[in-house]
């Protein structure tokens, strides 16, 4: 068995172990840990698009919204029929949740395909703007879909998300992104980022790489959305706006574009930071944005990026 697969098995077993003892963990701490897990999935999946493939996307919250809404709708509307009148046993609930998450993830990746297509023609700022626009359009559509709660939000979604589900998918996301970018095929993502013209000249289908990155990234964002919905139990369209996308982008930038370990650390730091800063709540966001500017000026390669200084930064 290759080393990556061994690590995957160990990590999944560790998730199971932590979940087994999760009753004994402080509920507040557990809450923060779950949020951290969801943010890791979002940041690592966005890193595939922004960091490894160099396609600057500002619409990740839109994919997350699709996952959250569609998987939430699955458990709310199809759940009672699937589980029967007695509410079902944990196994059938688990199957329902898995199915709902997959529906959410797959619909998000279809949206990713749709957004990936314009990325064939656009780059840099323009692409950022189009993805931002798509994200906002998705949000407005959910806001106007009365069947999904409209502006009032969708609730009550059953609380299926627990530490095992969250960290199981964290492990899976990290595994897929790491093995994908290190595979022979996956080197094409890096080539597309580093020099698109040179990549094309050696026969790589850069268009295809961009679309694959969007589709895979969107899939995991959809999963993260589903986990988020079944964790918060009620979701509102305003929770998936432009600010949420920026939050995820900041995690990727802070971690160092195309550096999965750094991005994971950044997601942990940025999710835990607001909790730590609770005493100065009023100035929290001022401090946060100020740190962001200082960081970009002082360490443009990312806080947790320790590659040699001469290495070409991802742009």
């Amino acid at each position, binding site marked *: 068995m290759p080393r990556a697969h061994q690590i995957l098995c160990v990590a999944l077993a560790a998730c199971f172990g932590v979940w087994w003892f999760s009753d004994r963990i402080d509920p507040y701490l557990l809450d923060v840990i779950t949020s951290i897990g969801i943010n890791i999935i979002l940041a690592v999946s966005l890193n595939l698009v922004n960091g490894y493939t160099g396609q600057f996307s500002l619409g990740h919250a839109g994919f997350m919204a699709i996952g959250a809404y569609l998987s939430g709708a699955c458990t709310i509307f199809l759940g009672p029929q699937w589980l029967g009148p007695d509410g079902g046993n944990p196994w059938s609930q688990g199957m329902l949740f898995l199915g709902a998450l997959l529906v959410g993830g797959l619909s998000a990746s279809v949206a990713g395909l749709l957004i990936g297509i314009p990325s064939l023609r656009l780059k*840099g*700022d323009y692409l950022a703007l*189009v993805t931002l*626009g798509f994200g906002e*359009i998705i949000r407005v559509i959910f806001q106007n879909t009365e069947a999904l709660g409209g502006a009032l939000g969708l609730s009550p979604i059953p609380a299926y998300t627990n530490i095992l589900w969250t960290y199981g998918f964290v492990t899976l996301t990290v595994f897929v992104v790491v093995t994908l970018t290190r595979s022979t095929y996956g080197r094409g993502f890096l080539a597309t980022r580093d020099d698109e013209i040179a990549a094309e000249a050696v026969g790589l289908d850069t268009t295809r790489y961009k679309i694959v990155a969007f589709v895979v990234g969107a899939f995991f964002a959809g999963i993260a959305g589903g986990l988020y919905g079944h964790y918060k139990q009620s979701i509102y369209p305003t929770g998936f706006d432009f600010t949420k996308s920026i939050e995820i982008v900041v995690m990727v930038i802070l971690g160092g574009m195309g550096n999965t370990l750094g991005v994971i650390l950044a997601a942990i730091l940025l999710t835990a930071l607001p909790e730590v800063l609770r005493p100065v709540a*009023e100035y929290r966001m001022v401090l*946060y*944005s100020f740190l962001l500017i200082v960081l970009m000026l002082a360490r443009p390669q990312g806080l947790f990026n320790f590659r040699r200084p001469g290495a070409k930064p991802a*742009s």
Partner: protein
Amino acid sequence: MIEFLQQLLNGLSLGAIYALIALGYTMVYGVLRFINFAHSDVFMVGAFVGYYLGRLVPEGTVWGALVVLAGSMAACAVLGMTIERLAYRPLRGSPTLNVLITAIGVSLLLEYSGQVFFGAAPRNFPPVIPSARISLGGLVLSSNQLIVIFGTCGLMWALRLVVLRTRIGMAMRAVSLNPQAARLVGVNNDVIISFTFGLGSALAGAGGVLYAINYPSIDPLMGVMPGLKAFVCAVLGGIGNIPGAALGGLILGTTETFVGGSSWSTYKDAIAFAVLIVILLVRPGGLLGRPSIEKV
């Protein structure tokens, strides 16, 4: 027919404000090739400066209104130049993405500082300009709308004079065309970029005051949506192109007003982005822009 004209008028006054903000985006993009996300918050600061000045001057006088407008333009110009000096100049020559993130950081900083200093609750903008309604055969003209439209036209005409007829305007065009060559013929790029930021931010400040006159409820997050839409206008007309920004503003303003008046009104905010996506797919250079050729 009357209703059509009425909506057209509403659309023109909204579009005029979008155009004013879009000009700042387009000029900065012209010289530095990046989206200045903080521009929409300079617009917000403009409205707030107008709010505080508006309480100092006597209400409803012409000179009072001019003082408010000029004061907020000056304050925004200084703010824009400060932002450029402190946040963007150190990053000159680094990848666009880093500058973009810094711009987002500056934007968030202005918004959250605004919430701390001004408070998050919306405030009522003082009536600095006497408001009157003129009825014209069923068509209701609000004096504020006319002031917005004519004010915008005046400012655009002034901008056109600066860009086309002055030495500094010529230097701006030179930097936008080719920064290296401009430096070779003796243009001080730093001064020109700083001036461009000042000019664009002053227009955003004027836009903030004019917007607040028409929609008199201001809060620290008021700039986000108009800012995004104004950027869409700039792209729509061809970014870096000044008449294009004006054209984009008028198109988006009227489209949005007509959609807002129809049964699709709740989709109003999505329209701007739908228009943007279609334009970028069909004509990536914008309506008046020239498609750029990529060289290896």
